[in-house]
C-alpha cells in the first residue's frame, strides 16, 4: 500500500541580496516525485544544498511548497484542516541530525517523551509513567533515566531519546534527516541496528535522508539521488548500487572510501571536477553538465526528463533514447 506520494513538489525561496532590491529565486526543490510504500524505507541522497532536507520539511508540512502536492494515504496534506493536521502529526514524525538542538535542555526526558502522549491523549495520569518507561525500553534506554536532562547523555543516547519521542505516538512514517551523521562509527552502528529492529517490529516506513551512501545501501529499499533540487536517478537500492546509470550517481558511488581486503593498494579514482553550482544559478540544460565526465551535444541545451521503466528512472540524455 502506498503511504506517501509526492507529486511535482517544488519549493523556491526568495533571496534578497544585502542592499539589493531585486529578489532572486533559489530553487531548492524543483519538481520532485516519489512515493513510499508501507513498511518501506525510501532514501534521498545527495550533497549539501541538493534540497533533500527541504523535501523532508515539505513532506511534513513544516514549510509550504511553492507548488505540487504531498499525498498521505491518498489525501493532500496541504488541504487538511486543523483536526486532520493534528491526526497527520501523530502519523508522521521526524528525527534530526543535531540531537542537542532538538531536545529542550530545560525539560527532563520524561517531559520530552510524555508530551506527545499528552497532546494526542494517548495516556494520562498514572499510566503515563508506565507508557514512557515502555517507550524508553523499546529504544534500549533504562526507564530510570526519566528524571534526567539532555546534557547528561551522550550523542548516541540523545538520538535514542529523540527516536523514543518520535515513537511515542506510534507513527506510520518517520522522516529521518541525517540521523547518524553526528555520531561516532560504533554508535552509528548501534542506532542503525535500533532503526532496523524498529522497522521489523513496527512496520514503520521511513523517508531516510543521508549523504552517507554506505548507510543508505544498508538500510533503504529505494533510493532517489538528488542534485540541485531534482531527482536525477531513482531505483531499488540493490539495483542502484549494482549498476548506477546517471554519471553523477556513478561518481558518488566511486567517491565512497572503501576498505577492500586483499588489495595492496586501492586504485585511485577520478575525482569529479568543480563544485556544486549555486542553486541561485542553476546551469542551463542538464544541471550536472558542467561537471559531467560524459557530457555530449544536447546536455548544455536540453533539460533531460526523469524517465525509465519498472521504477528504474534516470534523468540523463545518455539513457533517454534507449
Amino acid at each position, binding site marked *: 500500500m502506498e503511504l506517501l506520494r509526492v507529486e511535482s513538489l517544488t519549493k523556491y525561496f526568495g533571496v534578497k541580496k544585502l542592499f539589493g532590491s531585486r529578489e532572486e529565486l533559489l530553487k531548492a526543490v524543483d519538481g520532485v516525485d516519489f512515493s513510499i510504500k508501507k513498511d518501506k524505507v525510501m532514501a534521498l541522497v545527495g*550533497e*549539501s544544498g541538493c534540497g533533500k532536507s527541504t523535501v523532508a520539511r515539505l513532506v511534513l508540512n513544516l514549510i509550504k511548497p511553492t507548488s505540487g502536492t504531498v499525498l498521505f494515504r491518498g489525501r493532500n496534506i496541504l488541504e487538511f484542516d486543523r483536526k486532520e493536521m493534528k491526526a497527520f502529526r501523530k502519523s508522521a514524525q521526524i528525527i534530526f541530525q543535531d540531537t542537542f538542538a532538538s531536545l529542550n535542555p530545560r525539560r527532563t526526558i520524561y517531559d520530552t517523551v510524555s508530551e506527545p502522549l499528552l497532546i494526542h491523549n494517548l495516556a494520562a495520569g498514572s499510566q503515563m509513567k508506565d507508557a514512557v518507561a515502555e517507550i524508553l525500553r523499546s529504544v534500549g534506554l533504562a526507564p530510570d533515566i526519566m528524571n534526567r536532562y539532555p546534557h547528561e547523555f*551522550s550523542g*548516541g*543516547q540523545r538520538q535514542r531519546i529523540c527516536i523514543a519521542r518520535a515513537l511515542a505516538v506510534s507513527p506510520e512514517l518517520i522522516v529521518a534527516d541525517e540521523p547518524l551523521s553526528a555520531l*561516532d*562509527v*560504533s*554508535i*552509528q*552502528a*548501534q542506532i*542503525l*541496528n535500533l532503526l*532496523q529492529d524498529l522497522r521489523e517490529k513496527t512496520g514503520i516506513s521511513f523517508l531516510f535522508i543521508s*549523504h552517507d*551512501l*554506505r*548507510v543508505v*545501501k*544498508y*538500510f533503504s529499499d529505494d533510493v532517489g539521488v538528488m542534485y540541485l533540487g531534482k531527482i536525477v536517478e531513482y531505483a531499488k*537500492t*540493490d539495483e542502484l548500487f549494482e549498476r548506477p546509470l546517471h554519471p553523477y550517481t556513478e*561518481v*558518488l558511488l*566511486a*567517491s*565512497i*572510501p*572503501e*576498505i*577492500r*581486503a*586483499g588489495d*595492496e593498494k*586501492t586504485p*585511485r*579514482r577520478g*575525482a*569529479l*571536477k568543480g*563544485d*556544486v553550482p549555486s542553486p541561485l544559478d542553476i546551469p542551463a540544460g542538464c544541471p550536472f553538465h558542467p561537471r559531467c565526465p560524459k557530457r555530449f551535444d544536447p546536455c548544455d541545451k536540453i533539460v533531460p526528463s526523469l524517465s525509465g521503466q519498472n521504477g528504474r528512472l534516470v534523468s540523463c540524455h545518455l539513457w533517454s533514447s534507449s
Partner: protein
Amino acid sequence: MSLLAVRDLNIYFRSAENPVRVVSDLNFSIRESEIFGLAGESGCGKSITALSIMGILPSNAIAEGNIFFRNKDLLKLDRESMRQLRGRDISMIFQEPMTSLNPVLTIGYQIAEVLTTHLKLSGKDAMHRSVELLRMVRIPSPEIRVKEYPHQMSGGMRQRVMIAMAIACDPGLLIADEPTTALDVTIQAQILELIQGIREEKRMSILFITHDLGIIAENASRVGIMYAGRLMELAGNRELFNDPRHPYTIGLLESIPKKRGILLKPIPGVVPRPEDLPAGCKFMDRCRYAIGECGVREPELREFSSGHLVRCIRAEEITWNY
C-alpha cells in the same frame, strides 16, 4: 629513518581535583614521505596529540615525554624556536576551514603572511607566490581568487586555501586533522586526491587524523588505532585491514555497514570518561573477548608480528576476516 618520533607522550588536563590524563604513554613514529593514519572515535586523544606536536595545546594542558622532529625534541624547544618551526617545518590543516581562516583578510594576504614571516619574502614576491600556490592546489583563476575573502569561497575551496597555506614553506610534516569531514563526498575525493598528489610531488610526510577507516584504508601506509588515549593497535595498512588483532579495531570494522539485512555488530556501551577508565585493559568493559585476566593489569602494546603492535593479551587467538 623516521622524521617524527613520539616517545612516551602523556598529556594531562589540569582540573580542580587530580589532573586528568587524556593521552597515555603514546609511542609512534612517522617515516619520511609516508602517510601515517591515526584513527579512533571522538575523545580518543588523536586531535590533542596533533596539537601537542604543533605546540598549540590549550593552556590547561600539560604534555610530558618527547616528540622528536628531525632529532630535535619539540617539547623542549622555547617559544620562539617553536614559533619559527611551526608553519615552516610542520604545518596543520583542520576540519573546519571557515574557522581557520580570518574572515576580514583576503586569501592572498593570509597566504602571503606565512611567506613573509618564515621565508622573509617581500610583500610583492609573497603575493606572487600565493598565486602560484593557489594554482598548485588547483583553484581556478588564482589571480582573481587571491584577492577574495573566505566567505566568497565554497567549503572545498577554503580547504584548498588552507592546504596552500600549509604547504607554502614546503614543510617536512603536514598534520591533517579530519580535513575532509566537513566536506561532501565528491569534494572529499578531490581533496584527498590533491593531498596525495602534493605528498608525492613534495615528498612530505603526513599525519592523517580521521574517524573514517575507509579514508585510512585508501590513503595511509601505516595506521594507529587509538582508544582512551592509548594506541591499541599499530600496523601497516594491509596488515591492519587484512589481519586486525585488537577487538576494538575489529569492532570499528564491524560497525561499518556492508551487506543489507545482516545485523551489524556494534561495540556495546560508550567510550568511558578519561577520569573513570577501568583498571586493567581500558577497552575491557566493551570487549566481547574479555576474560578475567584483562582486568588485572593493563596489557602492553607488544609486537605481535614484525611492525604489527597490539595491546591485547588474546591477540593470538582473535582472528577476523573482512
